């Protein structure tokens, strides 16, 4: 399983433009809002959690297409399925590698970008923590969609399939930051995100494994 994580990370390193592209997309989308709305601090603070989360979701969507598509095209996916280990472990490894290359950089960047929205320090902490819990869910659920739409043309279908599934993550993720801004305790939202993380890490590798088997049948 670690072999597959290392392999995917190495492939991502050879395709640095793709990884950086996702990251710059996130930075630009988030930065456009303060520029477009103007320096109204109260308004910026109010929209910050939603903007950061929606941008993070869209940025991850950009890289989801690639998760299985290139392995499918060059025949490597057949070899991954025929490896003598449960396919769910293989998909878990790919989800982990996807998160390291696309989710983790967003978590690290988000507090810096949050400064543009005049977020207080506690809200930035809550933002980082919520993204740390939420981005693996995004990657894990996305892997199911990527498996189901494998071999079909266009990423639009994938977006239509997966984005509605992200609604709970968006609500609780943005809610946690919102709570802190209003001086409330974000523990409830963060606990729900953590619960979602556990459920999605347990079930989505298995579900995307089934989707891959169907796609290759």
């Amino acid at each position, binding site marked *: 399983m670690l072999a597959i994580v290392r392999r995917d990370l190495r492939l991502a390193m050879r395709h640095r433009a793709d990884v950086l592209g996702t990251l710059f997309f996130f930075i630009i989308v988030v930065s456009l809002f303060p520029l477009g709305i103007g320096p109204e601090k109260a308004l910026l603070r109010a929209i910050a959690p939603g903007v950061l989360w929606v941008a993070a979701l869209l940025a991850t969507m950009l890289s989801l297409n690639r998760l299985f598509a290139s392995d499918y095209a060059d025949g490597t996916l057949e070899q991954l399925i025929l490896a003598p280990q*449960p396919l769910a472990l293989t998909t878990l490894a790919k989800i982990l590698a996807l998160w390291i290359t696309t989710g983790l950089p967003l978590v690290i960047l988000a507090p810096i970008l949050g400064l543009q929205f005049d977020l207080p320090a506690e809200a930035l902490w809550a933002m980082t923590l919520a993204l740390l819990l939420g981005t693996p869910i995004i990657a894990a659920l996305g892997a199911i969609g990527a498996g189901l739409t494998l071999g079909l043309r266009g990423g639009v279908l994938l977006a239509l399939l997966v984005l509605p599934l992200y609604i709970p993550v968006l609500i609780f993720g943005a809610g946690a930051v919102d709570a802190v801004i209003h001086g409330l305790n974000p523990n409830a939202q963060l606990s729900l995100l953590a619960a979602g993380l556990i459920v999605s890490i347990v079930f989505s590798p298995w579900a995307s494994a089934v989707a891959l088997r169907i796609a290759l049948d």
Partner: protein
Amino acid sequence: MIVCLLSLNQVQCLRGERELFSDVNIALEPRGIMQIDGPNGSGKTSLLRIVAGLSAAASGEIRWGGELISELAEDFFGELLYLGHAAAIKDELTAQENLLLAMEISGEPCSISAANEALAQAGLKDGLHLPAKYLSQGQRRRAALARLALSKRCLWLLDEPFTALDSIAVEWVASLLARHLASDGIVLFTTHQPVAIPGHTPRRLKLPS
């Protein structure tokens, strides 16, 4: 340890409404080699994929050592080496990295020196550290086939292994097949061209058009 024995019993394959083939029966003992032949679109690749467990047969059963492969699952994959139509070579990685990774993924990690040795046999000594996108079609094929020189798997399923290869490489692959058979392996392969395997005459299965 599972006994080396592959049997297909009345296997049928449907693609949509169309029947590709039905009533395919194959029994292969250790040292058995069978060549699947037939016109384009007759289902050679489908048959190999069914035997590999990648797709399901519409009806019939495939057994390995007397047990259904669907029940053996990963245990069966551990006996199997499948090389498909697509070479499973990553453009971004060098031939050496590709081979090392393919071996690692299939659960038979090998040393760098062993991989270099196999690639040298495959005639890829010069392309060792070039990304695979600079290799020709035949060279990519050779890099994929270099796995045959390293693998200890019992059952080899090879889909058109001789495509795009020059005569020297065809001889090299044939010698690898002969060596595999000599060590009690089983080979099931598809091809259009007549191939001489030293010391063996493959049984032939002709799929109807």
